[in-house]
Structures are given as C-alpha cells and as structure tokens.
C-alpha cells in the first residue's frame, strides 16, 4: 500500500508570494483600523447604544465557528477511524488554530478597552458564559496544538485517538458556549432560546467544512495533490448534510418563534419586512448559502474542484449573511421595555435601529480573516502539513 507523506509547500509560487503580500497589507489595514477605533473611540464605527455588536462580531464569530468546524476531518480521521481522511488531518488542525486566533484577534481589538486584555485574563466572573468562553477558546488552541504535535510525532501516534477525542469534545463545548452567549440573552426576542447552542454547533460544522474546502483544495493544488474521488465524494456529502442540518434548525427556531405571539414581531422583521435583513436571510443564507450549495455538493455534475470551491464560497457568504441577520438584526429590533405598552422616546425606544457598518469595522474583520490565512500559508511553508503520496494512491488522480 502506498504511504502518505507530508511535506512543506514546495517552490516559490508567484501566486503564493502575491497572496502573502496581499495578506500582510490587509492585516496592516486592519491594525490601523483597530488603532483608529481605539484612539478615537467607537463613534467612528456604525455601532451605537442600540446595536452594540456590529460587523467585527460577525467576522469574529464566523472565524470562531469555522475554527471549530475545520477540525471535522481530523476528528473523523482520529476518533471515528476514517483512515482515508488521515492525509488531511494535519491541515484540519492547522486551520482550527489559525482561524480561532484570527477570530479572537478581531474580538479583542473591538473591545472598548483592548489595552485591558490582561484584566480579561485575570478577573473572572464564573456566572458569565463569556468568561467561560475565554477558557474554552484559549484551551482549544492549546488542545489542538497538542493534537498537531501528537499527529506529527511518530512516537506519539498511540495518543492520537485520545487527544483527538478531547479535541472533539472540547470543540462541541466551545461552539455550544458561543451559541449560549446569545441563548442566555433572555430579554431579546431574537435569541433567548436553548436552540442557539446546537444551532451554533451545526453552523460550525457547515462553515468549517466550507473553509476547509477552499483552503485545502487551494493548498493541495499548489502542492500537486488531488483528493481521491471517493474521499472528495464523502466530504461533499458530509458538507451537504451539515448545511441541511443548519437549515433544519434555523427553520425549527423560526417556526417555534412564530408559535409564540410575543415573538411574531421579530420574526416578521427578520423574515418579511425588516429591510436588508429578509433579503440577506432568504437570498444570502437560504438560497445562496443553503439550497444551491446542497444541490451542487450532491450532484455529481458539479463534483470538479472548481465547482466545489464555488459551492464552499457560497456557504461562507451565506454563513456571513446568516450571522449578520442573527447578530445585527436581532439588536436592530426594539426591546419590549414594558409589557402591555407601546413605547416611544428620544432614545429611539420602540424604533428599528438603522445600522450601517463603517470602513474601520470592515477593515478589522477582513484583517482578522487575513491573519488566519497568513498563519496558514506561512505554517505550510515551515512545517509538513500538506499531504503527498509516494506511488499511486488507490483511486487518486495524482497531479
């Protein structure tokens, strides 16, 4: 049987160098944006006293969820005995660490006082799910780094399954914790439900697979390694399954809300007459990020790498739309301040808040994504993350 080997990214690809410089520039712009927001204050953003979490949070949560989901392939390989997934396991772990780091960078740089990061690391309120997430996020990076070390050290191979199991459990708790950040907001009609935790788990599985497709197919193409049609087919079906899972839970969430009279206002706002939000939901998330990629992932006519990457990019765009609707739409809709009364005030009570993201917010978010990508492209040049085969792997179409 042919042996899987791993190697560093070979050669000095022109596209690689261009990407490297582009990412460095985008990170620089992101840092300038963060400095601008910190020195001027958040008035330079589109956020205000009503929409307090804006576009940076959409990017940050997208990256955090993707990080957890990117570990799918490694988990299947180590925990569920999927040996044919093994060539991609290291890359899967690398994506998990880098994406999470990018997401945390955005989250920290958007704080009102990012200089007080040390306070966040030394003062803990354990009744806060946010405080627990600080442990879950940093712990996840540590666990996956150990996981990578175990995978990459032949003498440690015996521990791969057990460390992989810890990583799997950890990421399920992590994404539940991220969902719980919203699920515990009892006063907001858009959240306040336990379904946020499983929904975020499924979103992470779906988004993580999408990011994995784009990164892996690009890197493996540079490295001259093509996935076997069997493995590609399995991963495509898995992606479709995860997207359908997200669509199911989202439908369940909204249908449940529609049964509750006091939640019908927020449902109408997000799904029917809320301006940009229904468009992003139906067109961005359901159609472009859901139905079409499911069709393409399941239909053999669209099984080429180009179609697969396109479908994955659509899932990513759809996921960002979904997070935008959830995070920002959920805040834009007014709170029920007083049961049984309509409210109006000079502080915009009872009104829809109009949020327009600013350039610094966009730059910060893109900077976080660029940081994750830069770490990936640098890491694959330094350490052997990319698979290659000696001889011919059965079913592979080696390039």
């Amino acid at each position, binding site marked *: 049987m042919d042996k899987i080997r791993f190697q560093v990214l070979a050669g000095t690809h022109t596209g690689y160098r261009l990407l490297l410089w582009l990412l460095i520039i985008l990170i620089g712009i992101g840092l300038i944006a963060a400095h601008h927001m910190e020195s001027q204050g958040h008035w330079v953003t589109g956020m205000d006293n009503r929409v307090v979490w804006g576009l940076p949070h959409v990017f940050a949560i997208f990256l955090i969820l993707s990080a957890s989901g990117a570990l799918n392939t490694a988990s299947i390989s180590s925990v569920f005995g999927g040996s044919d997934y093994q060539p991609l396991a290291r890359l899967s772990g690398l994506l998990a660490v880098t994406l999470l780091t990018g997401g945390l960078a955005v989250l920290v740089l958007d704080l009102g006082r990012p200089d007080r990061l040390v306070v966040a690391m030394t003062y803990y309120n354990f009744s806060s799910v946010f405080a627990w997430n600080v442990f879950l996020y940093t712990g996840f990076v540590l666990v996956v780094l150990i996981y990578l070390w175990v995978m990459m050290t032949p003498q440690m191979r015996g521990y791969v399954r057990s460390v992989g199991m810890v990583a799997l459990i950890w990421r399920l708790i992590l994404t539940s914790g991220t969902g719980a950040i919203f699920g515990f907001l009892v006063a907001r009609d858009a959240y306040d439900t336990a379904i946020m935790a499983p929904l975020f788990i499924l979103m992470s599985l779906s988004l993580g697979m999408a990011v994995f497709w784009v990164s892996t197919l690009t890197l493996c193409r540079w490295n001259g390694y093509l996935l076997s049609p069997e493995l590609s087919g399995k991963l495509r079906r898995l992606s479709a399954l995860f997207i359908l899972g997200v669509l199911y839970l989202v439908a369940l969430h909204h249908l449940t809300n529609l049964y509750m009279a006091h939640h019908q206002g927020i449902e109408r706002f997000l799904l029917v007459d809320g301006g940009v939000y229904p468009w992003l939901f139906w067109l961005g998330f359901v159609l472009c990020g859901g139905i079409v990629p499911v069709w393409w992932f399941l239909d053999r006519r669209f099984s080429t790498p180009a179609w697969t990457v396109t479908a994955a990019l659509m899932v990513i765009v759809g996921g960002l739309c979904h997070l935008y609707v959830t995070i920002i739409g959920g805040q834009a809709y007014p709170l029920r301040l007083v049961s049984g009364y309509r409210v109006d005030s000079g502080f915009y*009570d009872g009104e829809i808040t109009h949020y327009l993201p600013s350039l610094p917010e966009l730059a910060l978010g893109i900077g976080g994504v660029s940081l994750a990508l830069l770490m990936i492209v640098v890491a694959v040049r330094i350490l052997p993350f990319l698979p290659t085969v000696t001889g011919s792997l059965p079913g592979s179409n080696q390039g």
Partner: protein
Amino acid sequence: MTNPENKPRRRFLGRTGAGTALLALAPGVRLVDLVLAKDEDEPASDETRWGLLVDANRCTTGCRACVSACEDEHALAKTGRNRLDPQWIRKVELVDESNDRSLSIPLMCQHCEDPPCVEVCPTGASFKRADGMVLVDKHTCIGCRYCMMACPFNARSFVHEEVTGQKSYSPRGKGTVESCTLCVHRVDNDRTPACVESCAVDGHGALAFGDLNDAESTVSKTARSQPHRELRPDLALNTGVRYRGV
C-alpha cells in the same frame, strides 16, 4: 456707673472669651459629627435595599427635570450625535395597548435583584452592592458591551469618545459602559439621588427614594399601600425601581 474707658477692655475680654469657648467646643462638635458620620470604608449593608418608586400619575410629558438633574450631576455632556449620547435616565412615552391611554415615565437602570448585566459580565466589572445598587467598576470594565446586550431596559450607555469635565465622584471613561448609579455618592452621604431631588423641586414629585427594607420609609409605606409593578414582571428580576400607575 460704667467707665467709658473700660469699653474696649470689656469688648476685648468678651471676644476672647467667645473665641476660647468656640475653640473649646468646636472639636467636641466636630467629634460628634465624626462619630455620627459613616466611615468611608464602611461596607454597604444588605440590611438596606435602596429603591425608587415612580408615580406615573404625577410624571408629565415634556417635563425633563430628572433627566437634566442627572446630566448636571454626572457631567453627561451631549456628544452631538444623538444615538451616542449617554442616557443614564430618559423619559419614555407609553401607550397602553388595550385602551390607548398615554403615560410618561422616567426610565433608568432598574437596579434588579438578579441583574442580567451582572451575570453576563466576564470580568465582574458589573456588580451589585449589598444594598442593591447595580454599578460598574470603571477599572475592570473592558468594554465588551455584553451587559448592554443583556439589559432588558436598554439602561446602559457605552462611552464612544473622550469625555471631559468629569466629576471626581462620578468617573467616566472612553471605551467603558456606564449607567445610573442611583447617585451612590449622594446616598452614601445620606442624601437622595439628584433626579429625586429635582423632581420634588422642579418637577411634580413623581419620584420617591428610600430603603425598601425599612418598613417605616416613605417608599415602603407607599409601596405597601398602593399598587405598583415592575416594567418586565415576566423576567422576574425583582427590580429596585417600581412604577405606580403603569
């Protein structure tokens, strides 16, 4: 007969005596003050629960006495951008959905017994004092705004830009979250919050402040004798601010 030549001498003796008496008594008076005054380090006691009772029947549309008093007391200057202005207390107009009756109420931090903002704060910067006041420690607030997401009353503001002219007793800081302190600096010195004082003088006496645990306090007596409610009773927060006539 009085010798006129003795007048300056008598005046001198009289003034010296009065001065001596004052010097002798003043420390005593000061000592009494010190004995009666609260120690600065004396912790808040859970035997007290500070609260406000708002009488919506007295509060009128257009009157902003409480809001202005709060802005003056805490130097809450306008930013020039309405959506970013600090709003520790605001006037809210209510319309009853069942009969279209209109009301006007002041709305501020409700100083909940189980405050969602305190539960979600990752660093513990949002905290509740033993006497029920919900406050923000400006030194440990990292500006994550999770408390603003959690507050059911939109009672918290984020400081979006540099602030000037702060009062020493009411520190504010760019990048941190703030809200009504129930004028803790005044209450700790046996005074009432600025909004309550102003409502009594310039407004319509719609606000009553006091210890909800003290059966003899005006606020407790009023609360016992007249129906009142929380704004969101469904959330079971047991707020320290109650409304009558809503």
